[in-house]
């Protein structure tokens, strides 16, 4: 069993110094990377549908007349919130890991958590009020599918983030911050997916490729 590397943040601030990566640290980073590569394959299956159904345009039902994306402010705010949450996490992580500023790390974890929760709420609002019927064609179907699975990812992320923030509040950190950095990488990937989803669902279909 791996030895615990948790200790109080005050001690961390005093003893903060780079340490070689342990096996558990390397495993953490590798697993995070493998997880988001698996997640990329998962989302790529949906993106394939965006290209395929658009090119096929069966019965002219890819994007029938009258179907439009939900209000642009929703899409923009979703992606901005996730990017801001990721940025807050990154800033907190950077100051925590490289400057030993744990009070800023704690603050930024709460900020990132709050922004993620707001992003979840806006996603749920968007899915509840998309402004079109769910039987309104290929674009509509993919919009609902992609936004729903992304919302599920976001909900899980928010729960973990709140947990990490609670742990940070209690002064429980991983000694060299690898777990924090790993989650930061995952957050970067999630923000990338959010941005891609915005471009794929709010922008590209209205500049058709076929």
């Amino acid at each position, binding site marked *: 069993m791996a030895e615990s590397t948790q200790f109080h943040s005050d001690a961390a601030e005093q003893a903060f110094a780079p340490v070689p990566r342990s*096996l558990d640290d390397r495993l953490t980073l590798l697993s995070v990377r493998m997880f988001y590569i*698996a997640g990329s*394959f*998962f989302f*790529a299956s949906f993106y394939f549908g965006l290209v395929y159904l658009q090119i096929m345009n069966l019965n002219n039902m890819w994007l029938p007349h009258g179907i439009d994306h939900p209000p642009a402010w929703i899409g923009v705010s979703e992606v901005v919130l996730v990017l801001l949450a990721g940025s807050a996490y990154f800033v907190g992580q950077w100051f925590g890991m490289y400057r030993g500023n744990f009070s800023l790390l704690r603050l930024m974890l709460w900020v990132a958590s709050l922004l993620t929760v707001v992003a979840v709420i806006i996603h749920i609002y968007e899915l509840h009020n998309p402004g079109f019927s769910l*039987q309104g064609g290929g674009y*509509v179907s*993919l919009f609902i599918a992609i936004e729903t699975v992304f919302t599920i990812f976001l909900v899980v992320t928010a729960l973990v983030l709140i947990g990490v923030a609670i742990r940070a509040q209690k002064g*429980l950190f991983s000694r060299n911050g690898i777990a924090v950095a790993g989650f930061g990488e995952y957050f970067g990937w999630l923000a990338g997916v959010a941005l891609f989803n915005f471009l794929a669902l709010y922008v590209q279909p209205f500049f058709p490729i076929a």
Partner: protein
Amino acid sequence: MAVATGVMPARRSWLMRPNMLWAFVLGIAAFVFVVWGLGHDGGLLPSWGLEINQIMFLGYGAAILFFFIGLGVFNEPVKWLLGIPISEEEELERYGAYGGIDRYFRYTLDHKVIGIQYMVTILAAFCLGGFIAMLIRTELLTPNARFTDPETYLSLVTEHSVIMLVMASSIIIGSFGNYFIPLFIGSKRMAFPRIEALSFWLFLLAIVIMPTALFFGGSQTGWTGYAPLADQMHAGHDAYITTWALAGTANTLVGINLVATIWLMRAPGMTWSRMNLTCWSVLVGAILDWLAMPIMVAVQSMVGFDRALLTGLFVPVQGGSAFFYENVFWTFGHPEVYILAIPGMGIVLDILPVFTRRPIYAYRAAVVGMLGIGLLSWFVWQHHLFVSGLTPGLRPFFMFSTEMISFPTGLVFLAALGTLYGGAIRFKTAMLFAVAFFPDFLLGGFSGIFVSDVPSDVQLHGSYWVQAHFHFILMGATLFAFFAGIYFWFPKFTGRRLNERLGQVHFWLMWIGFNGTFITLAIVGIMGMSRRYATYFPYLQGVNVTATIFAYLLGISIIPFLWNFIYSWGWGEKAEENPYQSRSLEWQVPTPIPVDNFEEIPLVLSGPYEYWSNQPMAILKPSESAGTPAAGN
């Protein structure tokens, strides 16, 4: 630590601790409460406007959640997130340090316990799927549907195929992969024990949920679950979707865990070229699991959206396309074949040197072969769509890429034949199963050429030829390798031997029954009989009766095995520590294997097949060894 001092903290009584019994009670209660309590006609959920498929998914979701609560899966993660310390009792129990049979019925993190949990579940699923196959063959004794109506017949076909494929997806990787990989590479544990345990319980739930489809009209799609047929199915098809979502998630997690373990946790001196071939084959299978299974989860969740939210991803009048489903499904589907088959290759290649007393022939070629098969499996998926209206211009590429798989497969055969040639062969039961792998896989390969080739595929597509072909691959190769592994490593699991005479009876009954069934069914296919029909032309009755008799023989063959397995585990002849004088690391540790596998991380000096060498494969206690030779890199 308490284990070291021998003083273990007292435990609460069995019933007060989370276990499988509580998990099933809570899971079933949650499902019944949601689907029948809240979801009945005039109930709360329909009054909110929820449709049957939405209620079914809610029911399965609640069942999964409460199953895991009953199992105690969330206890430590929630405590960890909230910064609450985990008690010593909980931690010791999680790692199986208390021993005892009850650890097999809990959320235990010891990879050896998890390997056994997988193995027993796989055997149970195989018996269930096999029993359904006997029902199918019984129906086909006569040209007209006598025992079932066509819809029930197709439901049975779907049940059989999905249970068998979910089972086979983990047959080697889940059981032998989880049990032996840390032992093969000289590690004390898997990379992520919690994820490893979670993957098993997800897998078990997948197997358990599939038969519930029969209570809701079943699913008549077969294992492929093609849309838009899947969109129109009874509520039973929601069990199919949930099963694959769970199995896909479980296999993705297994893949990540095994790749991380092999990549980063090898003992000093355990270079890539010193890994045994089972380890290599599990690595290739795990990479495919990691990358292909998320695609299956994605496509089944899309079908779920169509069914629950009435979107039209696969409905042409709503702008969807059945080809979209088929392309995504088979992008997963063909690597899936090799998720099943490649790990089997590794096991049989590892068994051959032990029973021929020869080093493996062309080790590197075998590794390249398995890697090549894994890589090529991504570029062949459209051969499943040759008759579905695929652009003709694409056919030559996919025909060529499919037939290219023969080349790396040939390297694996080369290694096997080269090892057997001139060896002092001992035909123990494990060796019989290992050797049988090759002609059966070869028959699968040869029959596959005809369905990868467009002109013959146009004639044979959808016939019993295809059914015989994939059974030769999936059953003839994978299952025979699984049994070879059980006979070979049983002394390591249990400290006892399986009865050799009963083993030989099992092998010959199974081999004759299996080949008799599927060679006959290949002939039925050439004679023009289509798959998935409960009825057929009377002139086909003779061959169908023949196939059914062989199928009964195949079914009966499992009886001596089960008797042997259960009896020998409890009362069988005691086995020596290393009954085969194998060099491989797993045979160098004591039986029963300690919780931490090795007292110290071993120092590996040479490979597992170097039978000419006088030095051991590894030094198990490097700290006690003066003048330790260099381990290499």
